């Protein structure tokens, strides 16, 4: 089974370990992820705030390329990339004129009917049913699943999971043996790209999340978004400073957790790359 793969910038940089873990996990379940050739930036963070045409043309180019390269489905692990690609597809399908003008700017025509999967949808569709038989090391830990703002939003476009109280990550974690806690910060903002301009705000917002998870006894925070991960993990010194104590709860990707459960080595999953050391799992 061959699926298209759109890494986006994060998975080549700050979220290398996310890339490694997705790529390590897929073959275990007989899936080959093939990078879309000549992919470009999805425009996240900046484009949609300043230029609508650009914010649609950037993802549209990637979608058109994927279509040309013969993919029916593409996997987009980064929550922001996924959001931009899904929104662009929706907006262009809604407005024929807009699609024509975007096609002109990217110099390609396309059907715009490729299926875009985020990592949770990908796991749900291709991995979930087979997980139980592949588990070699049950992931018996108490975890807090953190969805962030983008994974299940905007609901009318993505139509997946419950917006206010999503449960898809919890279900997957329970499937590999974890206990998931009930907490209040599942979809609270981590500060996102303010990580660059206002580290103080990110420290405060991310602190609320990390602290609540730690207070309720979570041994790890499970994420599926590189932005969330970098804020909760890389900004931990600022978080610790804000809260006035050291919180050592690690933040790991859902793909890393499942990878561990099916017996992939921590190195292959990139677990050594986190700032907050993962010693306990």
């Amino acid at each position, binding site marked *: 089974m061959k699926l298209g793969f759109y890494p986006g910038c994060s998975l080549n940089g700050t979220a290398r370990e996310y890339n490694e873990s997705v790529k390590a996990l897929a073959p275990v379940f007989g899936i080959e992820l093939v990078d879309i050739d000549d992919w470009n930036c999805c425009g996240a963070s900046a484009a949609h705030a300043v230029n609508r045409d650009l914010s649609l043309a950037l993802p549209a180019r990637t979608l058109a390329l994927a279509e040309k390269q013969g993919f029916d489905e593409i996997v987009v692990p980064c929550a922001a990339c996924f959001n931009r690609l899904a929104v662009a597809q929706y907006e262009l399908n809604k407005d024929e004129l807009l699609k024509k003008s975007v096609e002109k700017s990217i110099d390609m025509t396309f059907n715009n009917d490729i299926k875009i999967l985020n990592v949770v949808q990908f796991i749900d569709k291709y991995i979930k049913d087979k997980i139980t038989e592949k588990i070699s090391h049950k992931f018996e830990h108490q975890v807090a699943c953190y969805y962030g703002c983008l994974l299940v939003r905007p609901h009318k476009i993505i139509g997946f999971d419950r*917006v206010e109280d999503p449960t898809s990550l919890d279900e997957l974690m329970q499937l590999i043996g974890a206990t998931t806690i009930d*907490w209040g*910060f599942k979809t609270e903002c981590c500060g996102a790209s303010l990580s660059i301009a206002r580290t103080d705000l990110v420290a405060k917002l991310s602190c609320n999340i990390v602290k*609540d998870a730690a207070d309720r006894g979570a041994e790890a925070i499970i994420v599926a978004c590189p932005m969330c991960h970098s804020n909760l993990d890389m900004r931990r010194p600022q978080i610790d400073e804000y809260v006035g104590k050291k919180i050592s709860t690690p933040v790991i990707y859902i793909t890393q957790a499942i990878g561990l459960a099916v017996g992939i080595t921590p190195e292959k999953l990139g677990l050594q790359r986190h700032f907050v050391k993962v010693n306990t799992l």
Partner: protein
Amino acid sequence: MSKIGVFICHCGENISATVDCERVAKSASEMEGVAFATDYKYMCSDPGQSLIKNAIREHHLDGVVVGSCSPRMHEPTFRRACSEAGLNPYLCEIANLREHVSWVHEKGEATTLKAIDIVKGVVEKVRRNKPLNAIEVPITKKALVIGGGIAGIQASLDIANCGQKVILIEKGPSIGGHMSQLSETFPTLDCSQCILTPRMVEVAQHPNITLYTYAELDKLDGFIGNFKATIRLKAKSVDYNKCTGCGLCTTKCPQKKIPSEFNEGLGLRTAIFTPFPQAVPNKPAIDKEHCNYYQKGKCKVCQKFCPTGAIEYDKPDEFITEDIGAVIVTTGFNVLKTDFFPEYGYGKYKDVITGLQFERLASASGPTLGEIRRPSDGQIPKKIVFISCCGSRDPAKGIPYCSKICCMYTAKHAMLYQHKVHDGESTIFYMDVRAGGKNYEEFVRRAVEEDHVNYVRGRVARVYEKNGKLIVKGVDTLLSAKPVEIEADMVVLATAGVANKGAEELAQKMHISYDPYHFFAEAHPKLKPVETNTAGIFLAGACQSPKDIPETVASASGAAVKAVSLLSQPTLVREPIIAVVNRCAPPMFSTCVGCFMCETICPYNAIEHEEIKDRRTGKVIKTVAKINPGLCQGCGTCVSFCRSKSIDIQGYTNEEMFAEVTALLNK
């Protein structure tokens, strides 16, 4: 040679702005069979009608075509005018030049030509129209009211006091509805039960009202003035003739831990139960789903203790059929439960409750006897947060409408809380405060100014539990525009008012329409607010949309008047638009061959058999179909099924319709 008059209305500028009315009239005057044609600015006005009447007299017209708005609007008006001038009203027809022409096309040659074509078609039809007479049908002088809440109670009493008979059915074991659950009512803070229970008793004692509790509508057949209602009387397992309502059985029943519906799950009841002490009728019924005897086959404790031997197990539901003249639907509403709101805890936090649950906490007859104590541990909450618009006005939740009652009851709740817990602190998160109504705004101001309720304009994003407190995270969108976090002891959600369970099914049973939210639809939002599109069926109360008590009572009285005005007529006049089987001279008598295909497909069972007998010998010559004019609804199904083309709809005969269509085709 017919003498048709054609009258083209400008409808102010509604028609004349896009259609050249003068030209339409001129073309009409040249049509075959037209004796007179003219146009006028407002044909429906008094001078316009006089114009028609005078023309009929002056030109001896034998048919009238009015080119104007939809026949739904003014056909009755123009037919009445014709009738006053001595012309049979069914010789007057409308050519719809507004909805079918001017409102849907732009100004231009083609538009005017279309208007001329439509007029020509109708002229051809009217040339063939036959004079018809309205049909008179008798009326059953009895109303059926479905639902025993305040709307049903008010409507029943109003009709009964006019001297008409009423059957009131209520699906629960007592009448009273949601109003009986309420503590105090806004804006006067008078006790809900004190103003309601006397009326409940009046219903039970009124000689003109027959009350069936624990009863539901099973089927409704027939039509205005002549409905036939089949009512299911659910078995109560108690013989009400023997039962004295002593209540001994309810104290002895071993099943004591059933969440009480009346207390919105905050209190418990037994399996044989009277929903509340002031219930009418004040006699118990057995809830079979929770009764040990019905579930496990043994117990019968209530039977053992009943001093009058009133308990009767295993009695089946009973069905009764009643002839009814008019129906009023007052089946009420419900509120969303807390489990609809994932962001507010998905129903898993005991101290996040609905407004209706708060009513029970505040009510003197409630589970806490009127003390505000939170459900989890019975403590008195010192900090309480009210969240209005939970679900309402939120398209993302599928409820774009305003539930209307919440702003007021939330203000009342906060006020009651402050009156009962003096050191308590209450906060209301709101979108807007909609306090439209007599003394309503003043009431809200009192909550703010005298009772120091803290109003915060903004939404609450999330409620979660931490260390025994409910953390309410919201935002204050006014001057400070800051996130707000409150550690509350209890949270009350003003959840959206929604249609009652089973509303859709009931609507389909009665053939009335409903909106996307399953609220029943009125015939006209402004001018027919209590009528439905089905003649003889009326609406009142919150089954139509969320309503507060004053509005509910007003609509109930309105519906009652409509029902009474129907029932007080000696007979009902119906349009003669019904099917007839043709008759001709002997030896044919009729082209009907008696195949009775029509009988098999008639949805109203209106087809009868008629034997044509030889006058002298009495021998049956042939059996033909005959249509019962009282039952026929003029749907026309039999016409299209008739193999020998022997059936016609009066006023829409095949000949008339073909003439109209042919005129449109052969320009």
